[in-house]
């Protein structure tokens, strides 16, 4: 078990390194292959009014003339150990993990990301709680009452849930529950209250985004749970559980649902990992200042260091979630042998 965990951890580090190389290559190697020079890359750092001479100096200072391997080494070192930037009059230290400075705000990227993280985590975790409870409960009931009106209605709604994009359901929910509605549930967009500041306001501001996001996922989980339950409830061990004289509720939950849990857990880990890197559409629709919104803004502004930072953080969450799921497998299914 311990060796397995260590091996998985090493793999996680390897994965992250590969992701960082790929990210670096996309932003620094690909433009060169497309014909960009050190100067044209540096031009983005110095503003529109810079002279050719200034651009040349900047390119030298930023190290764009060094071999790519050296540049990547500097980039990686910045993340692990921090970096020093020579901006002319003095040297500024950017502490680890250093993803560089924004082109636009000239502020370091990492503290920005740290500010955004609570928003995304609040959104993702809150929505996850809702969609797991709603999705799994709906799926179980649908499977038990297969073919009933409830089953058909639930699966119809679920189909709508997986098919309708967030920017549609989100906007509809805003129109119905927020803008110009005297009974509005939430303040129109853009406000986030940290949990530790005021938990009630925190939930109040997030309730619409939570439900919108959870609707999309709950639909998928309901279908997954239903399929899993239909399978496990036909297993021989369910008949055994009934033959023991167990009541139906315990048969369904303790034996049926428990048997159907493995694929749900797998998907849940991956979904949550992906969302923690930024719920792009939901955050954009509700103007929530989270990672996803940050990424979109950075991309639109071509703010390279921000884009790289948010990419790597998102990748970290996915790798981390995978690691957790792998470890949980052994807990959920004792037939999985770790080692």
């Amino acid at each position: 078990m311990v060796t397995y965990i260590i091996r998985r951890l090493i793999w996680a580090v390897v994965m992250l390194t590969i992701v960082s190389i790929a990210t670096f290559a996309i932003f620094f190697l690909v433009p060169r292959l497309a014909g960009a020079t050190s100067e044209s890359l540096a031009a983005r750092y110095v503003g529109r009014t810079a002279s050719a001479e200034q651009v040349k100096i900047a390119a030298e200072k930023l190290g764009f003339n060094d071999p790519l391997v050296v540049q990547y080494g500097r980039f990686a070192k910045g993340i692990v150990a921090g970096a020093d930037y020579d901006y002319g009059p003095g040297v500024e230290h950017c502490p680890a993990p250093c993803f560089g400075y924004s082109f636009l705000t000239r502020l370091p990227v990492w503290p920005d990301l740290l500010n955004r993280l609570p928003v995304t985590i609040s959104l993702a975790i809150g929505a996850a709680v809702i969609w797991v409870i709603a999705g799994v409960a709906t799926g179980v009931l649908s499977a038990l009452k297969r073919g009933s009106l409830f089953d058909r209605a639930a699966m119809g709604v679920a189909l709508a849930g997986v098919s309708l994009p967030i920017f549609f359901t989100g906007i509809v929910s805003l129109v119905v529950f927020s803008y110009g509605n005297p009974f509005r549930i939430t303040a129109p967009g853009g406000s986030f209250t940290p949990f530790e500041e005021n938990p009630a306001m925190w939930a109040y501001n997030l309730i619409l985004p939570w439900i919108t996001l959870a609707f999309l996922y709950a639909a998928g989980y309901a279908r997954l749970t239903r399929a899993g339950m239909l399978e496990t409830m036909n297993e021989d061990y369910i008949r055994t559980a009934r033959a023991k004289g167990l009541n139906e509720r315990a048969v369904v939950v303790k034996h049926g649902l428990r048997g159907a849990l493995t694929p749900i857990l797998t998907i849940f880990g991956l979904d949550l990992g992906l969302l923690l890197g930024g719920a792009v559409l939901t955050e954009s629709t509700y103007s929530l200042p989270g990672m996803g919104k940050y990424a979109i803004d950075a991309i639109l502004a071509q703010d390279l260091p921000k884009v790289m930072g948010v990419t790597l953080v998102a990748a970290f969450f996915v790798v981390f979630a995978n690691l957790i799921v792998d470890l949980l497998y052994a807990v959920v299914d004792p037939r999985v042998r770790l080692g």
Partner: protein
Amino acid sequence: MSFLELKDLRIHFPTDDGLVKSVDGLSFTLERGKTLGIVGESGSGKSVTSLGILGLHKGGRARISGEIWLDGEELVGASLEHVRTLRGKKMAMIFQDPLSAMHPFYTVGDQIIEAYRIHNDVSKKVARKHAIDMLGRVGIPQPDRRVDSYPHEFSGGMRQRAMIAMALSCDPELLIADEPTTALDVTVQAQILDLMRDLQRDFNAALIIITHDLGVVAELSDDILVMYGGKCIEYGTSEDIFERPEHPYTWGLLGSMPRLDREPTERLMPIKGSPPSLINVPSGCAFHPRCVFEERTGGRAKAEVPELLETEGGHLVRCHLPRERRRAIWENEIKPNLEAS
């Protein structure tokens, strides 16, 4: 009244293709401490009967009529909740494939503890001790350690022993074993059968063994019931069935049973054809399309459903052939072939 008595039990399943008459008018009795073997091919209704006794048919799709009396209580009309409280406690079941019949995610011990605590208000600790006792009793070595193993960590024979321990954990008075040895190695089969015989003696339970293998019931049963197409076609003591069987289908089963005391070069005598459809049951005697002696009934087999009649001393046969005719065929045509060596 007998401990267990079935009266004209019918279990039918409505399907899109028609009504499946899995069990069609089955009656028998069984006393405590006795063993009944129910023998038949796949689809003869033997497993459906056992699930019917325990009330385990899914989703209320089954149409059950007739009477099942267990220790003076009628089960067919009883409330589901009441039947549930009897399951595991009063009547328990051992299934065919112990690997799929045990939950893969819980330890063997947990599953026995669960079974015990449904019917006994005891702490987990007490139940665990009981589970270890039970595992020891069914011959699992180091039960105090094996109690924490998962089913997949057991061998096939060990799993079936654990399954038996689970079924016996609440000291049931009726034990139904549905093909208990079919999924096991031949060497293990004998051990499991021995174990069941010993435990039955200890617990003084009524035992029903369901199997397609006459060899299995030969070892254990006091009485044997042969099923075909949802009906009983022959019923008698073990001796009746093996020494003086009277139904052509029973002859066929005996002829298709591999035996060590026969010459290896000799061919088995399988029954031709395949089991009947339970939706469009053949007219008359359900066995007539496969019966070698059908024309000797003078057409009655095709036209008329034979009745289950006593030939002597509790030995019942459902066949149109006159009794003397059947005996003559058995003595002169079948028995010599079976015993030739």
